[in-house]
């Protein structure tokens, strides 16, 4: 079920390039099946030579980065390319000005951008949705990216829109980043079905502390981010949190419609996402009833279906659809945090002993403390520590709490590991409908014998948002840089409306 990626702006294009390279190397290293490749790549114009084309549209307001991305894809040795005409560039850049990207360039490139997307959509047999890669601090990724997201929402109502937004360094990369970031966030919170925040600061620390790179460059950081994204977006199949409670035999045994590849056992139990609610599986039951997942089997992320027989095999869904429907079930809560471990320097992988217990313990503590780094966590914090309830007035909540979590396990024995720790009710909000989804895949990811990733709809975003908001208030108070935005038709009331919306979002998460 294809996903179309849009790479917007310099950061989006560089990250996207890295993402496709990572996907390609993982797909070549392990056999995930044709459907997995088909999700992100389509058979190229010249099928005999085995070259695939990435399902991607590249958009930037200045030409150099797109040219670089296309050239790196075309470098010898890789089996994929970017589409030869699937890119849109202008000449003069958006000047780090959100309103220039949104109000200035947006309408100008509307038709051309939608045309490129339409071509990709037509080449996809059944569209799941869009993945937008962008930064939040600049002009193109932030402003034009938001405009494109809005245009896609209008044009393709039924498709999911997931945004992967790069949060800038707090020490500043762009002086007007408070404005740009908050405008992007406030608009996307209405448009997007899920916003994954990748923080530059966190990526930097991961590179420096865990990967042993002394002076991380953007290439290194993009590599880490791309691996984390790939670890959740590559195929996986659902299971329950308890070992052995996962595979209920699926009454429907129709062969899947798509050319699914090998996988253990029965055919996928498939249901359309909207109809997935089973009686009694709402709430917090984590017994076998709520956890009863249909058999996986196709190597695609099959959703959890009930035990009730489905009449005919509906189309399978992909991890992206899984992601947004499980995690972002409430319109006010769309901010997702991505944690992928282990983060090891490539040279140490062969010398490391992997155990599920260690990995899962660390991952759980990362979730409890809200950290995205594997080390330096405060192990004394537990979900039951004070400051975790909804009435907590601490400015940055010490204990993290989520709306929903999605755990992906990859590697040896991933299907049978006990992850009941993650199903602890104290980790998630009391009203959460679907607090934990687990899926797994037996293939190794990135040469690590075992690895786990967690995508959670949690409070981690509050800290960075509050700090950015303070800066933004300070600037707006002095009306600094406001005239640059007013050139393109924004006014001070737009700024204030945006800040109010952001306060809204952040208060919701604080009171989780």
């Amino acid at each position, binding site marked *: 079920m294809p996903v179309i990626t849009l790479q917007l702006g310099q950061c989006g294009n560089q990250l996207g390039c890295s993402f496709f390279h990572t996907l390609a190397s993982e797909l070549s290293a392990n056999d995930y099946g044709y459907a997995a490749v088909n999700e992100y790549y389509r058979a190229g114009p010249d099928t005999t030579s085995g070259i695939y084309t990435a399902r991607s549209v590249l958009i930037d307001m200045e030409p150099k980065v797109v040219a670089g991305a296309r050239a790196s894809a075309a470098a010898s040795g890789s089996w994929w390319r970017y589409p030869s005409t699937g890119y849109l560039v202008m*000449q003069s850049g958006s000047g780090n*000005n959100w309103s220039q990207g949104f109000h200035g360039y947006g309408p100008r490139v509307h038709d051309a951008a939608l045309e490129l997307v339409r071509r990709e959509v037509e080449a996809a047999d059944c569209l799941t949705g869009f993945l937008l890669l962008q930064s939040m601090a600049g002009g193109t990724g932030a402003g034009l990216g938001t405009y494109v997201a809005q245009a896609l929402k209008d044009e393709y109502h039924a498709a999911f829109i997931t945004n992967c937004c790069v949060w800038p360094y707090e020490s500043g990369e762009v002086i*007007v980043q408070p404005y740009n970031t908050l405008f992007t966030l406030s608009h996307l919170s209405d448009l997007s079905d899920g916003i994954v925040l990748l923080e530059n600061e966190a990526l930097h620390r991961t590179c420096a502390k865990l990967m042993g790179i002394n002076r991380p460059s953007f290439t290194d950081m993009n590599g880490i981010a791309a691996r984390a994204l790939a670890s959740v977006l590559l195929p996986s199949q659902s299971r329950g949190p308890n070992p052995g409670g996962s595979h209920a035999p699926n009454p429907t045994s129709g062969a899947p419609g798509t050319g699914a590849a090998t996988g253990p056992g029965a055919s996928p139990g498939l249901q359309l996402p909207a109809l997935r609610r089973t009686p009694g599986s709402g709430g917090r039951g984590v017994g076998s009833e709520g956890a009863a997942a249909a058999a996986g089997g196709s190597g695609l992320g099959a959703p959890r279906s009930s035990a009730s027989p489905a009449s005919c095999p509906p189309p399978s869904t992909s991890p992206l659809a899984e992601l947004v429907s499980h995690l972002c079930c409430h319109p006010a809560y769309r901010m997702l945090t991505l944690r992928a471990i282990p983060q090891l320097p490539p040279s140490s992988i062969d010398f490391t002993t992997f155990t599920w217990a260690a990995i899962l313990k660390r991952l759980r503590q990362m979730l409890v403390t809200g950290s995205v780094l594997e080390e330096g966590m405060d192990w004394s914090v537990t979900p039951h520590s004070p400051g975790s309830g909804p009435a907590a007035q601490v400015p940055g909540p010490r204990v993290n709490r989520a709306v929903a979590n999605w755990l992906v396990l990859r590697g040896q024995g991933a299907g049978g590991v006990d992850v009941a720790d993650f199903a602890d009710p104290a980790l998630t909000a009391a009203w959460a409908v679907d607090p934990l989804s687990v899926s797994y895949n037996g293939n190794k990811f990135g040469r690590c014998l075992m690895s786990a990733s967690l995508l959670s709809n949690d409070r981690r975003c509050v800290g960075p948002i509050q700090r950015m908001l303070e800066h933004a208030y300070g600037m707006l108070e002095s009306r600094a840089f406001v005239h640059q935005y007013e050139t393109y038709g924004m006014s001070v009331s737009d700024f204030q409306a945006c800040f109010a919306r952001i306060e809204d979002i952040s208060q919701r998460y604080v009171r989780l």
Partner: protein
Amino acid sequence: MPRELVTIQVGQCGNQVGCRFWELALREHAAYNTKGVYDEALSSFFRNVDTRVEPPRNLPVGDGRGPIRTLKARSVIVDMECGVINEMLKGPLGEVLDTRQLVSDVSGAGNNWAHGHHVYGPQYHDAILDKIRLTTEDCDSLQSFMLLHSLGGGTGSGVGTYILRMLADEFPGVFRFTGSVFPSEEDDVVTSPYNALLALGQLVEHADCVLPIENQALIDITNRADAAREKAAGGGGAPGGTPAAPTTAASSKPFDSMNSVAASLLLHMTASVRFEGPLNVDLNDITMNLVPYPRMHFLLSSMSPLLPPPRERDVGRQALALQPRTLDQVFGEVFSRDHQLIRADPRNATYLACGLIARGPTATISDINRNVARLRPQLRMVHWNSEGFKLGICSTPPVGCPFGLLCLANNTAIASTFTTMKERFDKLYRRRFYTHHYEQYMDCSGFESAIELVADLTRQYQELDGATRAPAITRLRPRGLSFLP
């Protein structure tokens, strides 16, 4: 498709700086364009012309692999006396500069701003506009104009600011950058305070971004470089015997090195436009991030390395060892007063915004962040921008060095420069010395309005000077939860 910059050089100083600029630009592109193809980087400053046909035909960039035929600079040259231009055209740059883009007269503007602005300006309005239009029509997508001039004379300041106003009217969407050479204390033109202030009033109104360059600062820089070179050459015995090194430096034209510094500034600023890098900075990024209020567009620049490094055979290994070794050293230099192109004291004033553009293949974002974190505590930043720096990284280093750094700062220290200019102006204006020369061509309201504009701006800067503590801010109530207590 390239993004072009058109350079307009006005007056003697402007043309001399422009001349050095073209030489250095050719040198830089020659260093990186080893195959002699006309690529996009070259096309931002030069046209590729096939002179075999008549009229000469412009060759487009195409796929970036066409060979270079004849390069012509995208520039318009204006001077009211022909001495400097003739010399330029006779020299090695004669082929690169196009006589079709030349506007000149014979008698000069007599160091009189009013003569330049109110007489020559309108007189040559059509001719100049024509030449500019011709140049812009050759561009696929024009990004900005760069005006090179001095403020102390008659042509550069008078005609230059007239052209600035004309560009603001005729090409409103294109950025107008100016490299303006401010007169120094010991300027040899008596009326330079008048010219400078009158021109400054125009710059405040019509320029998008001004890069002030002070002659005195350039003199200090070149003297220091010469002294260092002499010390190194005289100290150790450089191999190959270079007792001739000091004399070769002295025998070159006195303003040559000074103009090189100014020209390097422009090259460095546009490096990220022409070459690629992990974090590109366009010219409109610069105006967006470094200009917080519409008229406060004066940026203090400082750079390292300042001068293109001499060749080893000229100065020997010891002198070459004086070049900065690490990126951290370069950062330290850029924030020191020795490397500024204008004599102000930014450390004792408040930074409104600061932009750093690093060049070099080994510069990474973490290097920049580390150095910024190291140096920021020593800087006084305005309260609403206490953290922010605008960063840019370009992969191509300056010629002959492994890395380079440019700092463009919007700092309230410029107010003291303006105050000094105003004082010098007042010394003459109090007694109305020489004003009769100006009143031939304009009435005294011209003086008054310039005084007012500059005073206004100075006051704005001074108000922000002490603004390092944030006032109390009322936060907005979240929309969705407004019913909650």
